[in-house]
């Protein structure tokens, strides 16, 4: 156990955390502002990744593929909002869950139909490949640093958008009292469409960023969606600040747990038992964390509770 290892794992935790943030920012806004449980958010992640893969195959450019992921995911988001989601705001959560679950199946099967069941693999652009010496013996993958940077910039953008702009005021107001702000002359349905598209675009970008170093396949969004729900529950529903903090905490707890728990157990028992028990415990850690947060603060860090 060295200092360098800890720093590198912490960076891994941040990278994972920022990716979760891109996913959960949209989810928490949609949940908080519109009161909608959107299970199909993982599908936008997948759509982003697949559109990046398609554009990258056609044009060979990583940057265009990132742009494509934003554009296509937001278009998909806007269409879904206008055609389907709009009818669900006044329904109860069970209807929303059923309808958005149906969307998952619809999107997964259509993507399977267009792209096939075999995973696609993207290449990291030359400028971001390899690793960077940060200080001393600490090296870190340039691409993962790039993900951290993109996550950080988008977090700043979202804080600015929500906190400092007119639009942000409307969003925050909508969170508190939907009817009042429409009575004040704000076109609430346009605001909802915009928010939904924004959330989808962020999820799509996360999919493209992660798909580039992992793989692009049908159903890739759902495991991330589960984690994103954990994040927004811990952070407090509707709060960007909460989602930001909870993402980083979940990312770091999961990453550090995956190597620290087996390492601690190894002093108690032989390596292979320690590894198998350790990885089992490590994969439960974030859910344990969620349970603790829910016991201590049922509304999450910055949540106001659902009414």
């Amino acid at each position: 156990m060295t200092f360098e290892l800890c720093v590198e794992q912490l960076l891994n935790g941040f990278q994972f955390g920022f990716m979760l943030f891109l996913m959960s920012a949209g989810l928490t806004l949609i949940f908080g502002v519109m009161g909608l449980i959107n299970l199909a958010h993982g599908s936008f992640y997948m759509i982003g990744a697949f559109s990046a893969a398609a554009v990258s195959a056609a044009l060979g450019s990583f940057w265009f593929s990132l742009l494509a992921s934003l554009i296509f995911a937001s278009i998909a988001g806007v269409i879904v909002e206008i055609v389907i989601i709009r009818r669900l705001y006044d329904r109860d959560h069970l209807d929303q869950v059923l309808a958005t679950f149906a969307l998952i199946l619809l999107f997964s099967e259509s993507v399977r139909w267009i792209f096939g069941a075999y995973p696609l693999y993207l290449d990291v652009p030359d400028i971001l490949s390899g690793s960077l010496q940060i200080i001393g013996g600490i090296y870190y993958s340039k691409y993962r640093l790039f993900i951290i940077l993109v996550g950080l910039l988008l977090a700043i953008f979202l804080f600015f958008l929500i906190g400092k702009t007119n639009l942000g005021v409307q969003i925050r107001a909508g969170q508190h009292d939907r009817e009042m702000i429409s009575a004040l002359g704000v076109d609430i349905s346009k605001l909802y469409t915009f928010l939904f598209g924004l959330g989808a675009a962020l999820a799509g970008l996360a999919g493209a960023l992660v798909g580039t170093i992992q793989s692009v396949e049908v159903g890739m969004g759902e495991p991330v969606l589960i984690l994103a729900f954990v994040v927004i529950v811990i952070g407090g529903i509707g709060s960007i600040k909460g989602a930001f903090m909870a993402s980083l905490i979940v990312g770091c707890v999961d990453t550090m747990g995956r190597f620290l728990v087996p390492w601690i157990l190894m002093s108690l028992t032989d390596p292979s038992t320690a590894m198998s028990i350790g990885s089992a415990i490590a994969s439960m850690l974030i859910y344990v964390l969620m349970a603790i947060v829910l016991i201590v603060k049922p509304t999450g860090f910055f949540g106001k509770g659902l009414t």
Partner: protein
Amino acid sequence: MFKLIKSVIVLIALVTTSAFADGHKLKVGMITTLSGGGSGLGIDVRDGFMLAIRNNDNIEVIIEDDQRKPDIAVQLADKMIQSEKVDVLTGIIWSNLAMAVVPAAVNQGKFYLSPNAGPSALAGKGCHKNYFNVAWQNDNLHEAAGGHANSSGFKNTFILAPNYPAGKDALTGFKRYFKGELAGEIYTKLGQKDYSVEIAQIRASNADSVFFFLPGGMGIGFMKQYAQSGIDTPVVGPAFSFDQGILKAVGTAALGVKNTSQWSKDLDNNANKIFVTEFKKEFGRLPSLYASQGYDTGNLLISAMKKSSVKDADAFRQAIRAANFESTRGSFKFSSNHHPIQDIYVREVVKEGEVLTNKIVSIGLKDHSNAYVDQCSM
């Protein structure tokens, strides 16, 4: 040369069709992984198997996708046994799925021919007279990799594999032959896509080599991220970590890597030459070891059908055990616990024209059986 091979194939096709004019009918249920990160393996096994039996009208095959989920595999097996009434089951790629399906299937009197998964539990105490593994016992390729790590002079190896039966067999097999120290030992999650945590530990471990067993999409993810990390510690592994599907996605980062396999496309025997040529012609890609395993399974089945009807279970079992078919691996016979006794080769990743592929450099283990023969009382 091509003309000659072609005419040989036509001849074989003619001979086999005529031999089956009054042959025995048989129904095969194939449960394999055709979607998600493990689909490359299942698709290759299916294509290899179908290539072997394509001219055989007496075999009816039902193919279903298990999505690498044990519960779905169990449902499919129940459906195939109860409503489809298949005689032989095959196709499962992943050992955790095999453990969920095989014992129940063979206890209901069905034959199971494994084209891939060979968990130690089914080779030792859990062996069964109706279970045959046509590929290998899980430990085999890793044992050869352990031996190869010794002869390469590696003294301090970092080992990792997914946390499921085949992953445990892999590390057990490697450790059985490897004489050096372990710089670290990690079990990852099956289907894991991000290996940043493990790669950081490899970097910090000061290992002189890395042994990893990560089949399918897991191997692609690991190798791509390993190459990105800037670590230059050499890697060794079983063929599963460097099969044709992985090499295509990983690219030149894998060039020169040594891996161990019971099969290679350049194995010099007649059955293999026909297989490689025909596979390329039919599917437009190079075959992998999984495809060769599917192909051998198909041919083993045909050889047994020539001798006996599947309705006469004892005679049919005897016919399978005889393994009287031309394997793509050259000589092929079963050990007493129904797993292959075969040579395991050391291969190297090379570039042939524009394509990355494997080439045999030496024999790792000759006439290699498995460590569980004595535990099986059959």
